[in-house]
């Protein structure tokens, strides 16, 4: 059933990318998607834990919030790049990651890196080592708002550690 879903998703993606709808070309698409699904199955590539994460309805809302944060910190870091008087005050620290699953911690670490001014250096099960360009950026992470939002997207804790960074 999931393989059928994978096939349909791949084929929809293929149609969007090609923009050609002649029988011969579409036939190539059908064949190559079938080959991809076959290889994915043989190599056990179909990662159900990650898949179930990306159909969560609250994830797009989190992405919107994240985009706002990215724009805000972009302005701040861009100013510090060009303005002659602007100062940077880098520091390294460890931030707690309260997510239950590997996918959750990976999402948190990626969100930290996506936001300019903070980069995740190393990750452990419930901790991320972060390099921040300013103390202000460090304080934003340590305040735990982003951490809490990802925990809420993740939902109530389940057993098992799906996926993983």
């Amino acid at each position, binding site marked *: 059933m999931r393989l059928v879903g994978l096939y349909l998703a791949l084929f929809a993606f293929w149609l*969007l*990318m090609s*923009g050609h709808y002649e029988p011969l070309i579409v036939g190539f698409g059908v064949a190559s998607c079938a080959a991809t699904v076959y290889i994915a199955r043989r190599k056990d590539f179909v990662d159900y834990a990650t898949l179930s994460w990306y159909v969560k309805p609250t994830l797009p809302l989190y992405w919107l919030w994240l*985009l706002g944060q*990215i*724009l805000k910190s*972009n*302005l701040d*870091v*861009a*100013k*510090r*790049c*060009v303005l002659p008087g602007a100062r*940077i005050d*880098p*520091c*390294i*620290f*460890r*931030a707690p990651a309260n997510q239950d699953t590997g996918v959750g911690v990976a999402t948190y*670490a*990626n*969100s930290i*890196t*996506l*936001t*300019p*001014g*903070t*980069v*995740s*250096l*190393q990750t452990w099960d419930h901790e991320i080592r972060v*390099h921040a*360009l300013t*103390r202000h950026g*460090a*304080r*934003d992470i*340590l*305040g*735990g708002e982003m951490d809490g939002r990802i925990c809420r997207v993740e939902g109530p804790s389940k057993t098992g550690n799906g996926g993983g960074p």
Partner: protein
Amino acid sequence: MTLAVDIASWLCLVAGALFCLSGGIGMIRFPDVYARSHAAGVIDTGGAYLILAGLALQAGFSLVTVKLVLIGLLLFFTSPTATHALVKAALAGGLEPLCRELGADETAEMADEAAP
């Protein structure tokens, strides 16, 4: 209407170009790899997204816009992974950051300050 779309599109393109430029300047001015990775982050988030948005506004509702959105999603997933791999490799290679590691007491204090 087309004028408004054109104006919005050019605002996005120019703002994106400015972000790319300031990111490039930051990559030269900042002192070490870790600080420079933040400047690179400006280029592959703000710069890239704004330019893609500007181009999508130029293309209107078409297959091209779908492809632009997919490029944006690709960047959204791959650029943090690449940046993380880069700085982790720098750490593993023994490159010392030009800054101090905060202790647990300091981070606890900062978390308290940040909490509402």
